[in-house]
C-alpha cells in the first residue's frame, strides 16, 4: 500500500506537535514522581481543569495569553493546596497510598467539573487563525506555535532546574531528601513547589491543547494514560527521557494512524510499552538512577 511522502511528512509534523504537548504533561508527572515518589493519578484532571479555567478567563478577558498565564497560576495554586491537604500527610508511607489518594482526587475533580460545567464540550478559540500551505493541506500556524511554546516552557523549566536557586534546591532534594534538609533547604516547601509547578505545566498544556479539541470533563483521562506510558517508557523520574519518549510515541501513533483509525493507533504505544518492559525495564532512553 503506497502512502504518499507528503502524508508522511504531514503526520511527522502532527506527531511532533502532539509530542511536545505530551512532553509538557509528562514532564510535570515525572518531576513529581522523581522528587517525591508520588504517582499523580490526578494529573489528567489538572490538565482538564486548566483548560476549563482557560475557557472561563478567555470568556471574561477575551485574551488567550492572559487566560494561559492565569490558568497556569490558578491550577498551580490548586496543586499546592491538594499537596498540602492530601499528599503531605501521606509522606513517608508506601508510595502506593499516594496512587490511591490521587485516584480519589481525580474522581473528585472530574466529577466536580462534570457538575460545574456540564457534559457539553466547550470550545477555546484559537488566538490566531493564520494558516500556511503544507503540500496540499492548509496547516494552521497555531499548531506550530503550540509546539514551539511547549518547547519554550520545557526549556525554561530546564534552565530553572539548572540555574535557579529553587531549581538547585529541587535537584538537591531529588538526590537526597534528608541531606538537603540538613543543609537548610526548606524541603517541605520545595516539595509543595514541585507539585505546584507540575500542576501548572499540566494546566498550561490543557489551555494550549484546548483549541484543537473540545474541552470536556473526561479529556484528562486519555492524557494521563498516555503520560503514564511516556513516563514508563522514558524511565520514571527521568525528564529528558520523558520528553524523548513523548515525541517518539506521538510520532509512532501519527504514522500508525495513516493505516488504522486513531482509536486503534493507541495500540502502537501499548506495544512500545510492552517491548520496553521486556527489554529495557528501566526506560528506553537513559538508565534510571534507581
Amino acid at each position, binding site marked *: 500500500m503506497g502512502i504518499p511522502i507528503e502524508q508522511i511528512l504531514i503526520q511527522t509534523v502532527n506527531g511532533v506537535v502532539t509530542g511536545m504537548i505530551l512532553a509538557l504533561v509528562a514532564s510535570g508527572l515525572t518531576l513529581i514522581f522523581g522528587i517525591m515518589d508520588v504517582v499523580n493519578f490526578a494529573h489528567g484532571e489538572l490538565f482538564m481543569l486548566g483548560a476549563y479555567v482557560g475557557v472561563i478567563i478567555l470568556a471574561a478577558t477575551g485574551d488567550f495569553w492572559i487566560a494561559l498565564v492565569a490558568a497556569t497560576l490558578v491550577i498551580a495554586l490548586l496543586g499546592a493546596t491538594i499537596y498540602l491537604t492530601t499528599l503531605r*500527610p501521606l509522606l513517608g508511607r508506601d508510595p502506593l497510598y499516594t*496512587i490511591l489518594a490521587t485516584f480519589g482526587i481525580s474522581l473528585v475533580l472530574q466529577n466536580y467539573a462534570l457538575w460545574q460545567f456540564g457534559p457539553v464540550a466547550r470550545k477555546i478559540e484559537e488566538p490566531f487563525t493564520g494558516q500556511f500551505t503544507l503540500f496540499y493541506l492548509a496547516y494552521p500556524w497555531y499548531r506550530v506555535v503550540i509546539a514551539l511554546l511547549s518547547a519554550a516552557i520545557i526549556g525554561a523549566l530546564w534552565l530553572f532546574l539548572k540555574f535557579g536557586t529553587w531549581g538547585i534546591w529541587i535537584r538537591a532534594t531529588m538526590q537526597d531528601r534528608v541531606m538537603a534538609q540538613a543543609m537548610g533547604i526548606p524541603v517541605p516547601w520545595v516539595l509543595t513547589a514541585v507539585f505546584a509547578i507540575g500542576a501548572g505545566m499540566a494546566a498550561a498544556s490543557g489551555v494550549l491543547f484546548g483549541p484543537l479539541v473540545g474541552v470536556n470533563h473526561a479529556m484528562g483521562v486519555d492524557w494521563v494514560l498516555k503520560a503514564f506510558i511516556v513516563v*514508563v517508557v522514558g524511565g520514571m523520574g527521568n525528564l529528558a527521557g520523558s520528553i524523548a519518549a513523548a515525541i517518539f510515541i506521538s510520532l509512532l501513533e501519527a504514522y500508525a494512524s495513516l493505516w488504522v483509525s486513531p*482509536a486503534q493507533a*493507541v*495500540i502502537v504505544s501499548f506495544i512500545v510499552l510492552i517491548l520496553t518492559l521486556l527489554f529495557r525495564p528501566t526506560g528506553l532512553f537513559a538508565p534510571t538512577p534507581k
Partner: protein
Amino acid sequence: MTRRRTTVYWTGFFVVLGLLIIAPLVLPEFWRRFLTEILIWGLLAMSSDILIGYTGMVSFGHSAFFGLGIYGAAAALLSVSPPSLLLALLCGLVAAAAAAAFVAYFSTRLRDIYFAITTLIFSQIFYVIIFTWTEVTGGENGLTFSRPPLAIPGIFSIRFTPDTLHWFVLGVVGLSYLLLRRITQSPFGMVLQSIRENEARTRAIGYPIERYKIVAVMLSGLFAGLAGVLYAVQNQFAAPDFVFFLVSGEVVIFNVIGGIGTLVGPIVGAAFFLLLREGLSRFFTEYYLIFVGLIFIAMVIFVPQGLLGFARRWLNE
C-alpha cells in the same frame, strides 16, 4: 489458634451465610438484586485482595479480567444454542485466565507503582481492542444475550428465578471465599505473604518469586473472571465500560475501604461503596462520585487499614 476462636469464626461465618440465604425470601425485589450485585462485586474485590492484601501488589488492571470474563461468557452464550451455563463459565474463565497470563507475564517484571501502572495500561489494551473491534464485540453498544438455565448436562435443568440466581451467586462466592482462604493459608499463600513482607529475603531463601507472582496474578485474574461470568449471567449484557480502568479503580477502592488482606473486607467495602452510591445518587444524581472520592481520600489518610482492618489477624487465623 485457639479452639474457641475457631468456633467463633465458623459460627460467625455460618450466621452471615444463613442471613444471606434467607435474604432473598425477605427482601423486596430491588434490594434482592442489589444484594446479588454486592456479592458479585465483592467476589471481584476479593480476587483483587489476593494481590493487594496478600502479595503486596496493587493491580489497577482487574477490569480487564472481569471484562474478559463477561465477554467470554457472552461469546459462549451467543454462539451456542441453547445457552449453556457450564460453557459460559468455561469460556469466561479461559478468557480471563488467558488475559491474566498475558498481563502477568509482562507486569510481574516490575514492582510497586510500576506494577500498578503497567496493569492499568494493559487493561486499557483490552479496552481499546474491545471498543474498536465492533464486528465481534459490538463496540460501544456492547452485547446482549439471554440467561442460560441452571443446569448440569444430563442431570437436571431449571430456569433461573431471582431467588435461585441469588443462591447460585451466593454459592459460587461462598465457595470462592473458602477456597481463597484455604489458598492464603497454604504454603503457597505463605510464600505470597512473605513476598509482601520482604521480597529480597524471600528470594534469598530460594523461592522463585517471579513464578509465584505470575501464579498469584493468574489466580486473581481467574476469580475476577468468575465474577465477570456471574455478572454476565445476572445482567445479560456486556459493555466495554466494564473493561475501562475506572472499574479497576473502584475495585481498589472496595479493597481499601473494606480492609485489605482480610478477603471479607473487600466484600464489606463493595457493600459500603454500593450503598453509599445508592444513597448519594438519590440526592446528587451522577455527581455522587465527588463525595465517594472525598470519603475515599479521607479513609486513605486516616483509616488506611479499612473498616475490617482491626479484625485482620483474626480473620486470617
